[in-house]
């Protein structure tokens, strides 16, 4: 004899392991289908959550993570604290502060579609006095009309946040477009696009500080003189990379007498947390995927048991040709693993395709975590091994004469 080692090479092993699949293609396809569906579901769920998370993070990065917000917090006695009038000017002088804008919440003023609306129906909207560079600092675009300018900031003219416009039922800017703000009519100059970083702006009607002072009585008295203000929120853009340094100084700079009455936050944090939540996969679908995998495993085990019974004569013949018990066991185990692996690979591809299609339609980057596809393949391998073990052991223990006698 030429060789002394009678172990099968991988080519022969693969050929022998695929005999059953090649002989009964439909059956093999159907039993691999369960595993394909399971892995596809798992890969798609993980892929979609990662891709949506990646999409949100890309969006946040586009908005800029270098925006910090300074707001009036609770006073020592528990009431609403105020920011000092000079807070914006002081913050401007901090190192690494590039620009800032601010708004002042006019609590007394309410906004309605017309004078006839009952006063209680405010629709949750607020009125804010604003610095003219607000849209530039926040990076909020105009959906309609125009933003305030030095002239309109003195007039009874308002610009509506996206949500405010929607609640007031205003979707276009007409020359005679007015709202009932405070106790008089204000013209509507424009409508803003949504502001993801500062959602308070969305539900506000924005007016100039001078207009707020003149028409809404929003003012401060400094040594008996009237000044417009104070601001209630200050939006600070820092140089990128210096967010933390600036953030640590903001409270004391804004209100040196009572730094603890100042709230400082980084709005992108909230969005990042939301992105993390979006990245948390849908456990319902993941659970369904796992159930499909288990059902698939039972299907493969079932098919393998039937296969061993049907192929008794093949087993007997192989034993007569010199196959050891171990080789018979390996053959059926490998067949089961191969079957599950085919299902797993098809499932991973289908799950990836589903993720790609959906992410594409949403404009997200396509992100399929390594753990998702490698886990899918590994799960398929494990299932194949578990499902095939018992049938393979049965096949190997079948006495060759019994296997040859039946038929």
């Amino acid at each position, binding site marked *: 004899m*030429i*060789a002394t080692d009678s172990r099968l090479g991988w080519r022969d092993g693969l050929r022998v392991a695929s*005999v059953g699949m090649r002989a009964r293609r439909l059956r093999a396809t159907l039993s691999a289908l369960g595993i394909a569906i399971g892995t596809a579901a798992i890969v798609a769920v993980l892929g979609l959550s990662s891709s949506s998370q990646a999409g949100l993070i890309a969006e946040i990065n586009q908005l800029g993570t270098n925006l910090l917000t300074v707001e009036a917090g609770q006073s020592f006695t528990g009431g609403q604290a105020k920011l000092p009038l000079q807070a914006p000017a002081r913050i401007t002088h901090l190192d690494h502060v590039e620009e800032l804008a601010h708004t002042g919440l006019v609590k007394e003023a309410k906004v309605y579609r017309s004078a006839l609306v009952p006063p209680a129906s405010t629709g949750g909207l607020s009125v804010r006095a604003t610095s003219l560079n607000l849209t530039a600092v926040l990076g909020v675009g105009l959906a309609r009309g125009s933003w305030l300018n030095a002239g309109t900031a003195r007039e009874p003219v308002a610009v509506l946040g996206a949500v405010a416009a929607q609640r007031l039922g205003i979707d276009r800017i007409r020359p005679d477009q007015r709202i009932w703000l405070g106790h008089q009519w204000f013209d509507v100059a424009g409508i803003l696009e949504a502001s993801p970083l500062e959602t308070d702006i969305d539900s506000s009607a924005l007016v100039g500080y001078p207009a707020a002072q003149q028409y809404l009585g929003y003012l401060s008295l400094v040594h008996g003189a009237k000044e417009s203000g104070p601001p209630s929120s200050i939006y600070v853009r820092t140089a990128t990379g210096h967010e933390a340094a600036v953030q640590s100084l903001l409270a004391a700079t804004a209100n040196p007498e009572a730094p603890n009455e100042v709230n400082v936050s980084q709005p992108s944090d909230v969005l990042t947390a939301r992105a993390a939540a979006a990245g948390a996969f849908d456990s319902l679908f993941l659970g369904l995927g796992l159930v499909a995998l288990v059902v698939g495993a039972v299907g493969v085990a079932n098919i393998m048991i039937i296969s061993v019974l049907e192929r008794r004569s093949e087993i*007997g013949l192989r*034993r*007569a*040709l010199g196959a050891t018990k171990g080789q018979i066991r390996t053959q059926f185990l490998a067949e089961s693993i191969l079957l599950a692996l085919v299902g797993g690979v098809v499932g991973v591809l289908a799950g990836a395709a589903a993720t790609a299609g959906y992410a594409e339609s949403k404009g997200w980057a396509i992100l399929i975590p390594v753990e998702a596809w490698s886990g899918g393949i590994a799960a398929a391998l494990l299932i194949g091994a578990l499902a095939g073990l018992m049938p393979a052991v049965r096949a190997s223990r079948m*006495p060759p004469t019994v296997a040859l006698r039946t038929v």
Partner: protein
Amino acid sequence: MSGTWALELDGVTKVYGEQPPVHALRGVSFAVRRGELVAIVGPSGSGKSTLLHVMGTLELPSEGVVRIGGVDASGLSDRELSRLRARQIGFVFQQFFLAEHASVRENVADGLLYAGVPAVERYRRADEALERVGLSHRASFRPTQLSGGERQRVAIARAVVGTPAIVLADEPTGNLDSTTGASIMELLHELHANGATILMITHDAGLADQLPRQIRVLDGQVVSDTACDRGDVA
């Protein structure tokens, strides 16, 4: 491969079950020289297939000794027995047992699959074996495209492809009509003429009579052996 004996049985018994025990073989002893062509003949249920399984090491005897090419099969592990079957024994069955989804050539080459022979060599020898059984022109066919006689020729080619010490054939013409059966007998004679050791089981005394030596069995016992009559075996 040395020694004169391809196969030796000494006091082989085979008992199935406990109550009542079935004595399929009761003290069978005979020996087959290399190059012999032997018929084992007996009525149905006389223990012929059991004898073939024991000779082929597919089953171990309850008592007695089986030697293949001088190797005592008792006391061998599954691995060693498999190796013995892969290299020293060729089987031919009444039902052919061919793989339907493989070509004729692959079926024949698989006779060497578990013998540790590289694929190229297996296919080269398969082609040789197919030539010996006169089926070279059917090498790429599927067994389902062949007649019964051709299928049995493929099975015989698979049995002889590894030039085993002995070929064990269980009713090889049992599923064939008499003309086809006769051509299979002719093939066995040819292979024998070229040096193969063949032991054929049959219930057909007419077929057995065509072979040089006949061993008759009845109820698990050898009742006559033409070699003993002639004094070939001491």
